[in-house]
């Protein structure tokens, strides 16, 4: 019980220092904390004696991501939702479809609505950095997920849940070495996404041969993706491997290889039903799985633990969810989980 008191005191203190009176649900706090008179700050502990976070389990966490609600992100969302259901809290999912401006606005909206914790994917750290700092300054705990392993610390986020993209790329590079590829095309499905760039950088770091990096068209234009990969292959006869840094690109690479009449080593990133069948059929050799279900699930759990118990996970280091690999050896077991929508 004494422990809980301390927690309550600390929580109240942070709230006061941050001068934020956001949460409508914790009805007792606003009276004092929202008061503009800052000279009363020192008296705050006494007045907030009554406040205990456990009074209300009615937490709301915001997941502000650059999600396009595609194959990958729907699993993250599923993880976050499952965690929220298990913990009995509210989870608000704000996808921005790779639009940094919308994401900025979503963070602002979350802050304005007095969120109890924000999970944010830093696909575009330049745009989102100030907003994340503002949220933290407003006393809202933030965890970055998926993208942002390099920035979360300086921004003051609790931790980062995801795989560091470079490490994942490194893993892919080693796989290609083992397969015996000579020159690999790193095919990107988005332009200017730092995570995808890092995957290709990671590939370059460990891969013994040469790497060509190219944007091959968005996922919303599948035919263009096939033909652009084929064009790159035809333009350079030395390319004998393709790393699709997303699940769809890897599947498109199979058809592009057929079209260009080339035998390729193909690796992918993340998981989709098509990709699993392609691995099963032996057309794709491996995929780097960042187990994104964990990114949604753990973020919500960590935010919850921070809100209720002030736990900070990670100790200043990111919590890695990957890379795991799906190859022909384990594709069968994974396929069942994919069907269930959790891998």
């Amino acid at each position, binding site marked *: 019980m004494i422990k809980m008191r301390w927690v309550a005191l600390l929580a109240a203190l942070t709230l006061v220092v941050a001068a934020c009176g956001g949460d409508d649900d914790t009805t007792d706090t606003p009276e004092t904390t929202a008061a503009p008179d800052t000279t009363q700050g020192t008296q705050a502990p006494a007045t907030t004696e009554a406040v205990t976070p456990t009074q209300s389990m009615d937490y709301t966490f915001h997941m502000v991501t650059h999600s396009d609600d*595609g*194959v990958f992100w*729907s699993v993250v969302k599923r993880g976050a939702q499952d965690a929220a259901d298990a913990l009995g809290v509210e989870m608000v999912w704000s996808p921005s479809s790779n639009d940094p401006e919308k994401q900025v606005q979503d963070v602002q909206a979350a802050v304005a609505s007095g969120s109890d914790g924000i999970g944010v994917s830093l696909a575009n750290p330049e745009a989102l950095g100030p907003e994340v700092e503002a949220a933290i300054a407003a006393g809202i705990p933030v965890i970055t997920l998926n993208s942002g392993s390099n920035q979360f610390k300086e921004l003051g986020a609790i931790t980062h849940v995801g795989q560091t993209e470079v490490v994942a790329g490194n893993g892919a590079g080693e796989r290609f070495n083992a397969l015996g590829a000579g020159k690999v095309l790193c095919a990107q499905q988005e332009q200017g996404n730092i995570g995808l760039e890092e995957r290709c950088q990671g590939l370059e770091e460990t891969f013994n041969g040469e790497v060509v990096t190219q944007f*091959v068209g968005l996922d*919303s234009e599948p035919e*263009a993706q096939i033909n652009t990969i084929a064009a790159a292959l*035809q333009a350079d006869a030395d390319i004998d491997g393709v790393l699709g840094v997303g699940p769809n690109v890897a599947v498109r690479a199979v058809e592009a290889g057929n079209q260009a*009449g080339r035998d390729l080593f193909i690796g992918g990133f993340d998981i989709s*039903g098509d990709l699993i069948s392609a691995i099963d059929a032996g057309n794709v050799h491996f995929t780097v799985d960042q187990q994104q279900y964990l990114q949604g699930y753990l973020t919500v759990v960590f935010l919850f633990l921070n809100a209720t118990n002030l736990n900070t996970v990670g100790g200043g280091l990111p919590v890695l969810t990957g890379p795991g690999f799906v190859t022909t050896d384990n594709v069968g077991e994974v396929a069942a989980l994919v069907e269930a*929508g959790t891998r």
Partner: protein
Amino acid sequence: MSTETPTVPAVQADERLAYRGPIQRLLTRPEIGGLIGAGSIWIFFWSVSDVFGTTAGINNYLDVATSLGIMAIAVALLMIGGEFDLSSGAMTGATGMLVVLLVKDTGELGGLGLPLTVAIPITFLFAMGVGWINGTLVEKTGLPSFIVTLGTFFVLRGAKLGFSKLFVDKVIVEGLDDAPDYDFWVNIFGAVWIRNDHLWDSFLGGRDLVFGVLAAIGATAIVVGFMELSLVRRTEAGSMPSVRSAFALLIGLVAGFGGLIYLTQTDGVADNWTGALVMAVGAILAIYGYSSWRFEPFSGSSGGVSMGGQNGRRALIGIGLIVVGTLLGVVMDSSNTDVLGLLLTVQGLRAILFGGCVIVGVLILLGAAQRSDTSPVNRFVLTALAGLSVAGVGFVIQAEAASRKYRAEFFAWMMAAAVLLVTIAIVRISFDQRRHADEPADRFGTLVSISGIVVFLMAIATKLLWATSIELVESRAIITYRISILYFFVFAGVATWILMRTKFGSWTFAVGGNKGASRQVGVPAARTKTQLFMVVSGASWLVGTLIAFRLNSVQANVGDGQEFFYIIAAVVGGNLLTGGYGSAAGAAIGALIMAMSFQGIPFAGWNSDWRFLFVGVILLLAVMVNNYVRGRAEKST
């Protein structure tokens, strides 16, 4: 032709109206800007990439152009009718997804497992319904279609995601081939034709010979047709040619075709030169023979050669540029591939300097020729100079080039261009320009030039569809033509025909050009516009179905955001954003331009980061060219 000519006040001609022949009229078609653009982009990427100009390359960007093009044509029709449809992109994904959802026998949709024979018509009706709703909303509310269809766009986008999550709990629906009658329908929407299966190496003397002969016949017909359209017929046009004309014609034809065949069959430097020269002389002789038989000789006063004044200066600058460019091309190290700046290698810089100087020089010369209307001799000299320069540069390239692409193909084209220019020069000084309509000559000329264009297109098709065993060894690519390409071409043709020839086409132009006026004279404006919206959603249905059959699965975001590329393609192809003007064929060309610019970048091995910069520049150029062409269309009378 009307037989009963009313008492027209004896050609009380407005002196401001100059004669505007079929050729001038052709040059003001909305597609012209797009065609020039497509040609330039093709040549550009052809010269920087080894694969771009091959069948594998062409097949690649044709495939990309197909979906884009089918949509761009429909969107162009709607734009001509004065409206936009921002839901068209999302609609492709929606219809594709719907057809897969309907045939799936799992998921919450309750194992509907419909056969495709039922699912495809249902999807089509759905598409028609969405088009009808779009059109009716726009007409009933009077709101801008931009807003209304933006609403539909979001509705569709949300529905795609929501329903796919609801029914299959995933954002991608897979398994179109589960349908019981898939094997039948795949022939209609997913058929492929593999070119590599069709080898006729020595049929009719080989592909290149057939191509060369067809191309030459086509080109000859085009030249004859254009001469008939622009020169004055002799009064005794039906009579036999004089001995001199007949002799020139005969010798010219034999020499021309002989040279051509020789050129296509050999690859040595000396052989090429000989072949080209024989062909050039033959062609010029033949054309001279033909025209001295058919047309009135030049009757005006010629005026002397005067190289002074502004035109003289222009000519000097042009020649200077050509010489400088050629020297640069010869002197700069062609084997140096060091990277100089962002994109350029030394080699690339050389190509750009060389090409740029020569092209600009020739254009300046031709411009100077065009301006010297008062002195036909000047015009002759300048045009001929331009032609000879092209020939000279061709020989330089031929001697310098390391690859067969430049040595044989490019050289042949440059020789053809040179011959054409010199012929124009000779014909224009030797024969009278026609300045009035001449019904039989116009009809004959149009017929001949159109057949020429058809034969020429056949030649190109020959080259594309006919694989030689050497090519198959060289490229490992399996060239598969999808049935969607057929749909693209057919749709482009049908849409063009509808626009130009039918009542509906006329009304489309009218409701986009001046809705009030067309309503006033009884055009059902609302119905026409609604039908146009339905054309767009129908095209979305076709594209969505084609994608579903190709990928066997459709992701919820397929097509989202593509609507802007459809509009861009239509605009690049000469369609006016404000409506009332444009062409369906132009939109198809616009789609081809977009596809070539997107696909050219990986073919050239460039950094894809520059992709949108490139597209932006093309868009700006296209819009400016179109503006210029349209300006001329409205002014020139």
